[in-house]
């Protein structure tokens, strides 16, 4: 059962990918969703605004970043941890 946070994130990602939320699966990669780096940056901005958090993602060097973006599930887990740390 997805958390409320997860559902919000999926809604944001789906909107950026121009899909419906039920088309977004946790095992999908950002590439599969058609995300380029700018779309990702825009999605992270929406997520940061939504949850009042800061996501440690550096678009200069996505591979070196501590924030795992290897799949939608990983992104959600990372955001959930940041939201939990904030609370």
């Amino acid at each position: 059962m997805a958390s409320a946070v997860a559902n919000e994130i999926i809604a944001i990602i789906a909107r950026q990918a121009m899909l419906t939320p039920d088309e977004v699966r946790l095992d999908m990669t950002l590439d599969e969703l058609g995300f380029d780096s700018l779309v990702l940056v825009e999605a992270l901005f929406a997520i940061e605004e939504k949850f009042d958090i800061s996501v440690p993602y550096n678009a200069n060097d996505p591979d070196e970043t501590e924030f795992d973006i290897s799949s939608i599930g990983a992104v959600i887990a990372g955001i959930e941890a940041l939201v939990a740390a904030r609370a």
Partner: protein
Amino acid sequence: MHETYAALIQGRVAIGPLAFRDSDRLSVQVGAEVKGFVPEAHLSRSELGFADRFAQFALVAARQAVAEAGLTFNDDLAERAGVIVGTAGGGLTTSDEAYRAVYAEGKNRVHPFTVPRLMHSAAASLVGMALGLRGPSFSVSTACASSNHAMGLAFQMVRGGAAPVMLAGGAEAMLCFGGIKAWEGLRVLSPDGCRPFSGDRNGLVQGEGAAVFVFEDYDHARARGAPMLAEVVGFAMGADAGDMVMPSRDGAARVMAGALADAGLAHETVGYINAHGTGTTANDRTEIAAIRQVFGAHADKLMISSTKSMHGHLIGATGAVELIACLMALRMGVIAPTMGHRVPDPDCALDVVPNVARQARVDVVLSNAFAFGGLNAVLALARI
């Protein structure tokens, strides 16, 4: 463009109450806003992400221009054709919103596309991307003369053989809280309307919008049977090197004379001047004196009008929008009026085509732009 022709002929004044966010906190309450503009109806989703309001206007204007010119850019042409957009404020509404977010609302982040949106060059980039133009492309920023400089450079590039086709014009969207608040400081804005050359004028009124034109080599245009609007025959630019805000009669006269010299035309050939005509005392009197200086006795035969009385001062886009009045004069033989003219000013005692459009055949027209900071640019166009 035909809607604009119709509005100019009717003398329709687009100046009205401002209706953007926080406008109630401004001491100036009037402007010529673009009403009913729905960006989503004109721009793709990815364009919307990167387009400030000024760039949105530019994209719409550029697409209209290319459609009206019947141009298709094949690979060879696309590689050589470019776009020059004049703008004074660039993505000012984007900066304004970002500052509001971090200063007024205490937020700690701004939208990630703030930088690509606010760049002055964003409009040129987006137009080039929309049309696939890969030739010389850039933005020009010379305050109120920006679009005349942009179009003049495009003209020179086409004439010089650097590009067979250039898109050029201007785009501006300064009607936001920060944009008008800054202008209030100079105390040159009118509280109630723009009345160029009228003895009771009390300042300029801000407008917004864009206009873009296709500048095309004559032989290239003729070979493809293009609908030609006019021939650009001359351009001159210069600097007063004098004052940051006060205009110079000699500086203005020099570029008007320069545009005619560039065209190789005698001053008696000119029938109409689309004046800079801001509705400030300093501009209007200086401009009329400069016209008298250049044209001598012929000044009394000229028709001179300022369409800013209708569409307001579009700052970096103003020359481009005003070029429509020049094209109307050349193509339709209709001179756009200076609206709001109520009281003669002995210092502006030339024919300023007050309040009513006039039918008149003209062969050559000038379009004046005299910017803050003394940067001047004048185009000369001829009937084709």
